């Protein structure tokens, strides 16, 4: 498919690629960070970007939604909401343009509606390629609008989190997004609507301490890092050696903070089952 990308026009919004995606004739190879096996792109694509050793590769927001929602069902919303560097923070503009180039996205989250096994849902997916999914004001605004939209249209929300936390470069205004999004989640919940979060690698900081942990059902991908304080920070502060599985999905499941761990290939099916158990939602918007 590599060379065809030049001729190929995206059929829907999920088929847009990162703006800097390298077109190559030969197949791109990836090394598994866990078992160091070399894998070719087509194999990974077939295996939902999971290595034979079980390692779940980080994947971009659009690929994520393409994998998890019914084909051609995703319609993006609120993509026009972008940050305007409210604090004029040193170096932020350059970081933003780098992130935009690397991810092909204008913010660290994409939001919209889709169907999953025929069930209408509002969805969001965060992007590891965009400043490691950090939450700035536009991220918070998109998520808040999505929950408000879902509340208004009586839709469940399914969201995939990836985040290093609140975005330093937008200072206190980033911090306030934790409260703002939590308010929108609460209103959605008060209407009796379902919210499923899927914690993916890594989910930390201010996102863990807000909408990631506020789901009715909290799923996690195997081996994902999930925590509040960063591992290195904990290590430096406590001067203790940390358990090997510290702040993994398995760790938070054991301690009671996730409902279930689901391998990526089973994710869509489990989410679909849960949606059906909560009444599905086959009405058109």
């Amino acid at each position: 498919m590599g060379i065809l990308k030049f001729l190929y026009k995206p059929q829907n919004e999920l088929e847009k690629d990162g703006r800097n995606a390298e077109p190559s004739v030969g197949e791109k190879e990836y090394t598994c960070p866990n078992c160091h096996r070399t894998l070719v792109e087509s194999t990974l694509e077939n295996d939902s970007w999971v290595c034979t050793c079980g390692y779940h590769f980080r994947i971009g927001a659009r690929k994520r939604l393409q994998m998890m929602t019914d084909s051609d069902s995703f319609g993006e919303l609120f993509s026009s909401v972008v940050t305007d560097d409210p604090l004029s923070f040193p170096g932020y503009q350059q970081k933003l343009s780098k992130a935009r180039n690397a991810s092909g996205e204008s913010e660290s989250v994409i939001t919209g509606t889709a169907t999953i096994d025929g069930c209408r849902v509002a969805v969001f997916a965060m992007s590891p390629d965009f400043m490691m999914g950090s939450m700035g004001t536009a991220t918070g605004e998109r998520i808040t609008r999505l929950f408000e939209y879902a509340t208004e249209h009586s839709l469940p929300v399914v969201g995939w989190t990836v985040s290093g936390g609140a975005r330093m470069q937008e200072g206190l205004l980033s911090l306030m997004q934790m409260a703002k999004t939590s308010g929108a989640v609460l209103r959605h919940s008060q209407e009796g609507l379902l919210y499923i979060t899927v914690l993916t690698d890594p989910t930390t900081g201010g996102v863990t301490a807000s909408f990631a942990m506020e789901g009715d059902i909290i799923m996690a991908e195997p081996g994902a890092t999930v925590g509040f304080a960063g591992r290195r920070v904990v290590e430096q502060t406590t001067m203790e050696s940390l358990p090997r599985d510290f702040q993994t999905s398995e760790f938070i499941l054991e301690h009671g903070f996730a409902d279930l761990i689901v391998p990526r290939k089973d994710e869509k099916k489990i989410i679909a089952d849960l949606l059906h158990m909560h009444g599905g939602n086959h009405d058109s918007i």
Partner: protein
Amino acid sequence: MTAYDRVRTARNTSRPTAQDYIAAMFTDFIELHGDRRYRDDEAIIGGIAYLKGKPVTVIGIEKGHSTIERMRRSFGAPEPEGYRKALRLMKQAEKFHRPVILFVDTSGAFCGIGAEERGQGEAIAENLMEMMGLKTPELSILIGEGGSGGALALAVSDRVWMLENAVYSVISPEGCASILYKDAAEAPKAAESLRLTAADAKSMGIAERVISEEGLATPAFYKQLADEVAAEIEILEHTEDLLERRYQRFRAFGRYEEEKK
């Protein structure tokens, strides 16, 4: 005064702590302990007291004074149990129609293995969501450090006030400097960029009022603050759509442009 001077002032161990405010502004404080789940976190104190004759729930992050007390209180860094205790007392206040007054002073939520095992992120997240829906007036006063999510977990309130030299930030200036400049010694520079002073917070609408520190810790200072808090609580108790206004207060934060397609 530079931003970093204010950070240093906010951290000064001789500053009054939450218990000083509680002792001076309220009467008959009865401390209530524990989260009814796991333990009592002494980094947070809370209970019921009278504010000018009116029963209120008062909660504060307490750093302590002597070294021994400061250690016992984890230097004002609450663990999940502290946040859960605070939430328990807030729900109790809602049940008995008492307003909630919160004193915030923390470098951040406690960082440790146990805190992670017991769901620090979940504890903060739950407070944010529950405070947003709490059916009683809430007023938070940042008296020293407002360290990120650990401070916000007690500051999703109808009003947020800050002492003149209190600071409120998404990350410590040292943490920011070590990421940005690979050097924690650049903290003063980072402090400027982060816009973390009380005046900055007020200009962004994140704090409604900056409290002058003239006469800090004198009886006159506490009396005036108690008068102002009581007057504000009175206003909040007669505010219709309190929850809607609280929602909109936080809903408004964030400047972004609508990108032209």
